């Protein structure tokens, strides 16, 4: 140990000298690396030639395409979330407005792919298991898109490793982890967003690495190019799926660390220089991505110009921008003495009243007013009709008769001739809220209690009240309560209709109502208008308003996805591949698709992360005690290069612990890509303490340093080959679950001949025992497994 220490100390001394004494001492400084040069093995140098590298990446890419495209037409049925994303592609083609929690880029690409293969968007992807062939959907074209992107991810992973200065064989190792991974394959073969997300994520990482490598040629065209590429791909990742925002965070963290270093006084940069860097990054990594993200939404909204299933999520002013929208078509200004039906926005029940009265005494002993019942009723009925009575003098005709925001009105129940009122009596179900009832219209003794303030949502003073689009709250004038309802049924005495009462908090969500229909009007013009249905031009609304509203809704709905799902799993299970997702099953032939990764690859990746943390921990402890077990160059590589992968991994993984929405194992796939990169660099470190330097391009201000080469000898290719064979075998073994085919191998020991026969004959199926054999961990829940214990 002391010997090592001596060496380090000696190097240190020289390290200080080198600044002063110029290039000549640089050779001394690197003496321990130089020593490896002559012994670089033949196989290592061969593999790292351009040609060999190109050959390796070509082979990997071809295999990737084969694995992703193999039997892509099977199953010809809707699988798992194709229900959603296939449907959205249809909507793009039909240009009908829909709402989804994910940003639109990946779905737009599906729409594009569908349009490209001539799909007319007629199919609705209603249920898992619906047949594509029967419905004439060109689904292979749709599935080809993620399959292409998923296949291209493999060479990108290879390229990232190569660019980071790792040997061909190490880069191949990382790529193989992705290549033969059943989870990536299964996810890429179907109409799902993750392949697109991962593709753009890996491109972002690749661009950032290229950008970082040019740091001595700052502000050169290439430097700008890769900076802008990073920003572009980052925006694409973000625009593909909502968790792409994590990629933005990951790059953000890396950039902050970078800027912090530039700020360091020891580097000798001026503040001016720092601000230049800062602004460049702000432009490339904040402004540009924002513009791209916004333009994706702009395209999204521009395409979806017709009314569709997403209308109901949006505000009235948004809905009126959609062609053929109900609000747009049937929204009219309401005048006094119009007869209308009123609906509750959240629960879609009509404001209803009938001659029956509240019982004098409720079950819990409280007393009612015994007034006429006011309830919420779900169906059309003449008892839903209310007439709007003014409380002020009206002109005979003209626009003075229109009901406006902040007017005080009475509502007359047409059938019983009574007016709506509320008073300080507890409602039937909630002692804290006021009872709603009605009062004979000719009896003026309680006139004040029948007055209601009409308060329209987001209205300017004096705005006219419109049917459909005019959402309003009805505030009782004397007691300030708002007419409110909630999905709770009244007992039999009110025919199990919904309770309506007065809530003291007028801002509650459940206090919003709208006029569903103008049934009758005294105004002849309006009457005529109600008869005819004209085709109105959609209104226009500022893009940023639309975008803001949509973005907010996406966040709210994303957080609201908390319903439990049988295959949802917690983040702690993911790195260890403890559970998968059943995507699709078919009883006939006992076929199933089960999303599960290749255990060897996943455990190698998580093992790599553990070893990395172990190495750094041990190194920190050792340095704390004054020992320096790792050469500085190697250590820097571990911190800076592998550290970037670790940041990407951690940022895409740990935030899920804080999320309360339902989570699935495919949320880990971006992290899995990062962990494959970590595994590669850790393998490189474990095999030998040599690295390829320098990897960064020289700039004018930097003195060149001698080149050193990594040498992993023969053992690396051998190890990686063994690893690849193991990965491939396990991949084949699990593949019946991945492709939903009844296995073309019984087990991976079976001979090539049986393999070939099974490739041709699809009919034979996995027996229960074979399913059991594929259940490598007891926590996997496969279908069609054999019963374990017989009956007694």
């Amino acid at each position, binding site marked *: 140990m002391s010997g090592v220490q001596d060496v380090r100390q000696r190097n240190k001394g020289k390290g200080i000298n080198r600044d002063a004494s110029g290039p000549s001492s640089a050779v001394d400084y690197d003496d321990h690396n130089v020593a490896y040069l002559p012994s670089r093995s033949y196989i290592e140098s061969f593999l790292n030639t351009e040609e060999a590298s190109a050959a390796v990446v070509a082979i990997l890419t071809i295999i990737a395409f084969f694995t992703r495209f193999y039997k892509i037409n099977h199953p010809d049925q809707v699988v798992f979330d194709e229900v959603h994303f296939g449907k959205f592609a249809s909507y793009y083609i039909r240009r009908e407005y829909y709402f989804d929690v994910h940003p639109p880029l990946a779905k737009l690409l599906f729409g594009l792919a569908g349009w490209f293969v001539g799909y007319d968007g007629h199919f609705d992807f209603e249920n898992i298991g619906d047949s594509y062939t029967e419905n004439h959907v060109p689904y292979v074209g749709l599935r080809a898109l993620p399959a292409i992107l998923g296949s291209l991810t493999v060479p990108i992973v290879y390229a990232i490793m190569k660019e980071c200065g790792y040997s061909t064989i190490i880069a191949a190792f990382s790529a193989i982890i992705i290549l033969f991974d059943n989870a990536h394959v299964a996810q890429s073969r179907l109409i799902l967003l993750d392949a697109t997300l991962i593709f753009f994520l890996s491109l972002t990482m690749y661009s950032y690495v290229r950008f970082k490598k040019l740091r001595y040629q700052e502000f050169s065209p290439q430097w700008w190019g890769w900076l802008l590429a990073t920003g572009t791909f980052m925006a694409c990742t973000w625009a593909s799926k909502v968790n792409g925002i994590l990629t933005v965070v990951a790059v953000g963290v890396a950039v902050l660390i970078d800027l912090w270093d530039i700020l*360091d006084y020891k580097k000798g940069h001026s503040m001016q220089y720092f601000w230049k860097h800062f602004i460049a990054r702000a432009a490339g990594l904040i402004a540009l991505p924002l513009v791209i993200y916004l333009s994706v939404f702009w395209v999204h909204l521009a395409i979806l110009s017709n009314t569709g299933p997403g209308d109901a999520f949006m505000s009235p002013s948004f809905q009126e921008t959609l062609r053929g929208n109900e609000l747009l078509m049937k929204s009219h200004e309401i005048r006094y003495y119009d007869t209308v039906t009123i609906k509750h926005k959240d629960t879609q029940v009509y404001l209803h009243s009938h001659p029956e009265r509240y019982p004098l005494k409720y079950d819990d002993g409280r007393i009612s007013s015994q007034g006429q019942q006011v309830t919420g009723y779900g169906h059309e009925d003449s008892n839903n009709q209310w007439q709007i009575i003014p409380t002020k003098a009206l002109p005979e005709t003209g626009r003075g008769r229109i009901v406006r925001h902040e007017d005080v009105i009475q509502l007359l129940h047409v059938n019983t001739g009574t007016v709506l009122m509320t008073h300080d009596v507890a409602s039937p179900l909630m002692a804290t809220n006021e009872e709603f009832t009605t009062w004979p219209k000719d009896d003026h003794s309680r006139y004040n209690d029948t007055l209601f303030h009409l308060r329209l949502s987001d209205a300017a003073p004096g705005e006219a009240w419109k049917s459909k689009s005019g959402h309003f709250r009805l505030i009782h004038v004397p007691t300030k309560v708002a007419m409110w309802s909630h999905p709770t049924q009244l007992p039999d005495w009110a025919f199990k209709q919904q309770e309506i009462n007065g809530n003291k908090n007028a801002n509650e969500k459940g206090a919003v109502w709208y006029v569903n229909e103008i049934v009758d009007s005294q105004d002849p013009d309006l009457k005529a208008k109600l008869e005819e249905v004209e085709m109105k031009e959609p209104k226009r609304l500022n893009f940023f308003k639309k975008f803001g509203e949509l973005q907010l809704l996406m966040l709210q709905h994303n957080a609201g996805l908390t319903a439990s799902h049988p295959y949802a799993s917690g983040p702690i299970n993911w790195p260890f591949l403890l559970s998968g997702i059943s995507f699709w099953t078919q009883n006939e032939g006992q076929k199933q698709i089960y999303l599960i990764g290749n255990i060897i690859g996943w455990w190698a990746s998580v093992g790599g992360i553990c070893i990395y943390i172990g190495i750094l921990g041990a190194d920190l402890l050792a340095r704390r005690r004054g020992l320096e077990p790792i050469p500085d160059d190697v250590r820097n590589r571990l911190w800076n290069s592998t550290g970037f992968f670790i940041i990407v991994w951690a940022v895409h993984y740990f935030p899920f612990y804080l999320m309360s929405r339902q989570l699935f194992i495919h949320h880990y796939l971006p992290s899995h890509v990062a962990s494959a990169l970590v595994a590669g660099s850790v393998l490189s470190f474990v095999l030998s303490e040599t690295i390829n330097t320098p990897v960064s391009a020289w700039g004018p201000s930097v003195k060149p340093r001698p080149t050193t080469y990594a040498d992993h000898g023969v053992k690396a290719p051998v190890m990686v080959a063994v690893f690849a064979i193991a990965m491939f075998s396990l991949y084949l073994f699990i593949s019946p679950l991945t492709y939903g085919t009844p296995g073309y191998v019984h087990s991976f020991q079976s001979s090539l001949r049986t393999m070939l026969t099974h490739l041709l004959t699809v009919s034979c199926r996995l027996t229960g025992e074979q399913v059991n054999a594929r259940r490598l961990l007891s926590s996997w829940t496969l279908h069609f497994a054999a019963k374990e*214990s017989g009956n007694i």
Partner: protein
Amino acid sequence: MKPADVALNFGTPSGSPRTSSDFEELNYPHHHTATSNSPTGSLGWTAVPRREEELPLPHYMSEDTARRRVPRAPAVDGGETFVAQDEKHPMDYDVYDDGGKDVYAKMKAARGPVGSGRLRRPPAPPPTTVGELIQQNLEHIPPIIYTLLACWTRFHKIGKSGNVIWDEAHFGKFGSHYLKREFYFDVHPPLGKMLVGLAGLLSGYDGSFDFKSGEAYPEHVPYTAMRVIMATFGVAMVPLGWYTAVELGMSWRACHLVALMVLFDVAWLCISRFILLDSMLLFFTFTTVFCLSKFHNQQYHSFSFDWWMWLAMTGISIGCVTSVKWVGLFVTALVGLYTIEDLWDKFGDLKMPVRDQIRHWGARIGCLIVLPILVYMASFKLHFLILNHSGPGDAQMSSLFQANLVGNDFASNPLDVAFGSKVTLKNMGWGGGLLHSHVQTYPVGSNQQQVTCYHYKDENNDWYITPRWGEPEPDAEGPIRFLQDGDVIRLRHAATTRNLHSHPIPAPVTKLNHEVSCYGNLTIGDEHDYWVVEVVDDIKRGKKNNVDKIHSLTTRLRFRHQVLGCYLRAANAILPQWGFKQVEVSCEKENNPGDVHTYWNVESHWNDRLPRGNTKFYRSPFLRDFWHLNVAMMTSNNALIPDPDKEDILASKPLDWPFLRLGLRMCGWGDNQTKYYLLGTPVIWWAGTTSLVVSLLVLAVYLIRMQRRYADMEPREWDHFIYVGKIAFFGWFLHYFPFMIMGRVTYVHHYLPTLYFSVLMFAHLVDHFVLTSKRFSEKTKWIVFGALSFTIFACFWWFRGLAFGMDGPINEHWGLRWRRLEYL
């Protein structure tokens, strides 16, 4: 103070410039190269000609020479260079002497820096006159005055409301259980409630009142005395706050600020005045921080008596605070973080002998891990020793534990279980309950009758052991058929006559298991009602082979569904509101023979035809009971999730707290009642929260300036600034953030321990920027201090009614209306 320390503490926080920089580090500035070769440069730090700095941040310190902005060259390398240098120049103080203005350095001339910068005085000679005594103890006069004031605020009109206020309903009741020695169950550890019991004992209460919420106290309950004893913990908070501020090295004005804020916060005041656990929780939180700061100031006197004492006191405080409420784990985490950092520093001290290293580690493990666990366990031991009678909490514990309680009749149950017996079945997993069913049905799955695990005893837990369909019912005259391993039985629910049933429908929570329900009646049923009894072993008789007949209490059983092959299991998964938050029972497809959650034993057993048993039982081992109770507490705690269907007006969200968006009504709101409202003194809460945000900004600014080599503070000054900031910030963060991610229902009083750290942060920042700053004159400091103190006091005076009790209709107290108008 060695130059090495200067250089190390000075650089980036990582301490190692290599780690954060790129791996080709060649472009050093010119003057740096020049410096490192200059003669003074060999010391590693020196005053190079100052560069015109690029970061034009106006700084408040600009006129203060004490906190000089001495630009220094970067530390060229790690510590090793300096080790060599030190031996040549052991005492190089003069190098950075600033003309006697560095107060911190002058205070202590001994080697090594002083953490808090406080001077250790030699012990004074014993006083001879009273005057001398006062003279010597002048520093204790303010805290004494504050304590007296605290007595007044805490005890003033404490018995005004003769009703059971808020959670007195719980904790008063639990206190009564200790006096009656009846076993009860609660989600909180027992120490606080035992102290409530002790308070009752001291004030002569006999435990006979059942503390119904809102009810008036009868004559014989000395509630005022009990409240006074509880409030004493609240009184002690004030001097603890003062002394903690002193130990944290704050200036005397800042100490006054801390004491005033602790004294005049209405929420702390209000919560201390009733029979609740919070005053104790707060007290022990305060002691923990106090002991930690005491211990910190002993850091250069390792292994001295004081050092050991404060370390041990910290451990005991941790044990106590955790034994009052589990919230105490957060302050424990703070001590843990402090200790890890401390040990990391020690680990890097290459000059420290290995033996000392080991002693440091051992001391921490012993005092901060073992000792608190012992305290925690001792409180449970005491809990079990006192509560030796059967009571309402029995069913939470294992059958064996219950059998040993006085007043329990398990021992007289018939021993051998037979067909036709009526039994209750106890799950043997940690925290397991009794197999239960009730008429309510599942709203999901099969919609059949619910089967759950329940922790209280009632008739819905009773089951009859009956044979298969078609086999004759047990004949009252015929031979008794005893239950044996492998028998196939039906379990008939006594109250509803339905049979325990399972079918391949996913269970409501654990969706991968089969649902278990109750189905059919005396005549309707099918083969899905059949369960195979599998004996695991017997606690008394040992292995399965020795078990001929199944005994109640001791035989461990599993129930396998005959058709599906799954096992009856209850594993602390909570059903939603429709299942009354009871524990889900499901049928586990996997056969895990070691899973205790599939183990059951017969608990109560009734069979008229069998002889009464007369057994002596083993005592249930303490550790088993301890662990069982803790798991049960955990499960119940997790069941306290907000009910989405019901709006709880008392509950609040963590985001409501820091800016005091709302308070909490502590009692009825009738016109004739004395009303209490838990609401903090707004200025204290707002100031604390704001200071936390400011602290992060200040830290960022200082770090960026350091990165640009502006030296705003002496290294030890910086160390101290960071140390107090870390205690306050991490203390606050650890007490606040977990509530954000907790699924549990939260109330505003959960913020009260958290508030302490924001108060410390506020005082720290005011101290840093104004009260110890040389930039301001004494007069300005007086004005700032006076204004702050007056605001705090005035605000307290305005809101004092919330804690002292408000009479008359609430609408007359218009001045106290808070933001959510409908609540106050």
